[in-house]
């Protein structure tokens, strides 16, 4: 797990260099997080802009995050995704969300793994609830702790544990079913 990131003093004073560094560190991570939640690339880019615009507003009002800037930014992104999802149904196509690096693996294993990852992505998309998917992504793909995940989603740690366990079981069963075919 990554350590809690304090808010740089440069960010509080709206220093250009500090803000640029902050953006370069967190914008790609938030973008990937959004793709993992099934948001289209173009929308993910817009949400990234909204997240940092929100951060600027809060910094200008001296109401920025006191600590753990990373959790704070992901929390904003999470709520923006919820808002977008309410506006319309949208799911990124598989080729956008899953992109296996072909140079890393031999061809045979690469194809097998790509199929597995595609099944996993489909299972996450079809079988998990919104909260379960968020918990799974935050815990296993964004490396947040149980406590941080609970803070981002706004639920208790025990609820995060329950959602995580249920989500993993659902994924396992769903992938078995996908392997059996229709």
């Amino acid at each position, binding site marked *: 797990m990554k350590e809690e990131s304090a808010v740089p003093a440069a960010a509080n004073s709206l220093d250009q260099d500090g803000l640029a560094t902050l953006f370069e560190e967190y914008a790609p991570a938030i973008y990937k997080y959004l793709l993992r939640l099934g948001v289209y690339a173009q929308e993910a880019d817009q949400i990234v802009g909204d997240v940092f615009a929100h951060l600027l507003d809060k910094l200008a009002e001296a109401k920025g995050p006191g600590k753990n800037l990373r959790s704070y930014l992901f929390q904003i992104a999470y709520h923006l995704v919820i808002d977008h999802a309410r506006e319309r149904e949208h799911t990124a196509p598989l080729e956008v969300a899953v992109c296996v690096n072909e140079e890393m693996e031999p061809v045979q294993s690469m194809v097998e793994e790509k199929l597995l990852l595609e099944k*996993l992505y489909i299972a996450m998309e079809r079988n998990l609830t919104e909260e379960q998917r968020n918990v799974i992504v935050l815990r296993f*793909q964004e490396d947040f702790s149980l406590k941080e995940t609970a803070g981002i989603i706004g639920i208790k740690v025990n609820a995060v544990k329950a959602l995580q366990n249920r989500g993993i079981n659902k*994924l*396992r069963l769903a992938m*078995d079913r996908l392997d059996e075919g229709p």
Partner: protein
Amino acid sequence: MSTQLLNSQDVIGLLLKLKDSTPDYPVDLLVARRAAFLQAAAAIHLGGSGLSGKGGGDGGSGGIGGSGAMGGMSTAQSILLQAVIGVWVIAAMLTAAYVFRDQIIDLLQDNGIVTVEMTQAPSSEPTVPATIPPVTEVSPTVSTPIVVTVAPGDSLSIEATSEIPVPTKDDPGLHLGQTPGSPDTPNQDQPDKPDKPDKPDKPNQD
């Protein structure tokens, strides 16, 4: 790897691999978004918001303006400032109205606004009360004939003769506005009966 043998740890392992397979932020989008973010930050900074961030920073002028409604002021501060400004403006208007009250009155009078004073001017002449004599009904009277005779000795005598006929029961004479009712229409002078109110329409039972 077969999914038939998957357990929870396998799923978690796949989730970690899925993490690495997510595509990166396209460079062109990232650069454009970064430029827009820094531009917005510069606009807020140049707005003189007077950031009082936890890191101290370079302060600022604390002035009003910038990209936000009230720069770096909190909502409570901005409301308080607006209230103070409002009270100050009202006090200034009232003071000006008191100091220039004479000019304001003249200005209003020049613009055709007439003021009516209810004071009564003293007068040396006695005022005649404007009394209206009560209206009395004059009944026809029989005039006495007057005979005027002017004698050479400056004596004057007046003799009046009446040629007006005395109304009788059969011949009441022409009295405008007092035309007696004919026996054929005995109730002519009675007041009209009030109109009957319209009956409400019966509700349609269809």
